[in-house]
């Protein structure tokens, strides 16, 4: 009798081994992402989306992982799903700007960045991505005003100062550009763009 019980228990343990050994899909996905296996990381959570297409986090994460694979259209589609599930998601609205910008869809990316800024007026990444869009759309005066305003809130940030320098330079505000690029050098001493601009400006004056 004891033998029979022992055999059944052993058989049950044997059957449960595959389940026990199967890694949690989230854990596996994060582990593979850390190893830069983005396709594997996305694959790991694909079943979760298949079972529940309204899983917000899975949709957002799948969008991110397909963006990393340069599968931009798929990324946009999944970020849109996430936004549809939760229209308040700033993560998804910020996330979708990346594949849109990668495809050169600057108007659309700017729209999502502005949507984030309506809710979170000083959200750093939304401002940076909107600045990239304004630059691509040659909206130099808008970019100049935008960067002048936001650099006051992020005074240590060199990226905003670089955008300020570019906008001021192109729109003919040379003094503002020089000040901005000097501030970039203080923060990033080796920044080539700032070094080149200041060198060419010195040679002209």
């Amino acid at each position, binding site marked *: 009798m004891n033998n029979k019980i022992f055999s059944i228990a052993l058989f049950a343990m044997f059957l449960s081994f595959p389940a026990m050994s199967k890694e949690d899909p989230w854990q596996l996905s994060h582990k593979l992402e850390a190893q830069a296996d983005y396709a594997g990381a996305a694959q790991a959570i694909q079943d979760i989306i298949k079972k529940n297409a309204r899983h917000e986090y899975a949709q957002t994460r799948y969008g991110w992982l397909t963006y990393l694979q*340069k599968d*931009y259209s798929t990324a946009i589609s999944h970020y849109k799903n996430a936004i549809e599930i939760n229209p308040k998601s700033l993560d998804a609205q910020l996330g979708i700007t990346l594949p849109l910008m*990668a495809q050169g869809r600057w108007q*659309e990316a700017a*729209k999502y960045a502005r949507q984030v800024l309506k809710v979170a007026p000083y959200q750093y990444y939304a401002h940076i991505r909107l600045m990239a869009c304004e630059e691509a759309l*040659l909206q*130099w005066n808008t970019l100049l005003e935008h960067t002048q305003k936001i650099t006051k809130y992020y005074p240590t940030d060199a990226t905003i100062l670089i955008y300020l320098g570019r906008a001021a330079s192109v729109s003919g505000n040379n003094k503002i550009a020089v000040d901005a690029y000097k501030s970039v050098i203080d923060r990033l001493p080796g920044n080539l763009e700032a070094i080149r601009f200041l060198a060419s400006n010195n040679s002209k004056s």
Partner: protein
Amino acid sequence: MASRHQIVTICLTYLATNFLSVTYADNWSGYSDIKAAMISYQGDTTRKSLTDYGINLQSKYLDKLDLLIGYSQLKLNAGQGNNVRQNQFFAGANWFQYADLINGRVGWHLKGYSLTSPSSTIVNVYTGGLSYLNYGKTFYLDTLFTQSLYKNTQGNDNVVNQSNLAIEFSPGLKSSWLSLQLFMLDNEDDVLFDNTLYSANIEWTQFFGRSGLPIPMKLIVGAQLGDQHYLVLHRLDSINNSPDVQQTSYWANATWQINDHSELGLSIVTSEYQTEQQENYSSIYSSILLKIKW
């Protein structure tokens, strides 16, 4: 059997309703182009000068769809107080799809022109084609097919088929752009000139880092290679319905960015022509264009 006009109208209506129904007002932006141009002729016995005024409206739905309409009026001074007026209308649509597999944007283009003149020929032009622009915006390709239908007052019809291939790329860090447009014009009824003409427009664009007088935002210089007859230049919405062959042409254009919402462009073009009677004459075209974003 639906006419070409009906097919173009149905396609444009389909594109418009398909997108308008699912969009929001803040997704739309638009441009107006206001143009004034003048041509003076040297050595032409039938033409002294020509003026052309026009407005084009472009409505953009994000980066996916452009809807275009335009109107221009041309007045030809034939000398001795004789003037000829000509009206040109056009409507078109560009629809863009993004394809990661080919790392770029595919554009579908459709345009229809109607050129009317009370005293001479009526011209209807239909154009359709495809384009490709890589995501990095350093390489562009398009192919367009155009059919121009000429109906003159005597009821004689003439059909000109035009095929275009444009290959364009940025040779250096996006600060310059080289464009080569190849044209094949096929006119079966052309008894005086060759039935098929091959030509090319080659154009160099230089972008300058900053805009403001006197430095423009961009400067374009270009030249025509080979004879052109009844050519349609889609980018300029220009239909050359002159019966004479355009043999050479050189042009320059400078564009200044006034502010984030407006641009000013100045162009000059010199061209030489040959008539059916083998007589030569030339023209100088100058134009001013104001682009306003709204």
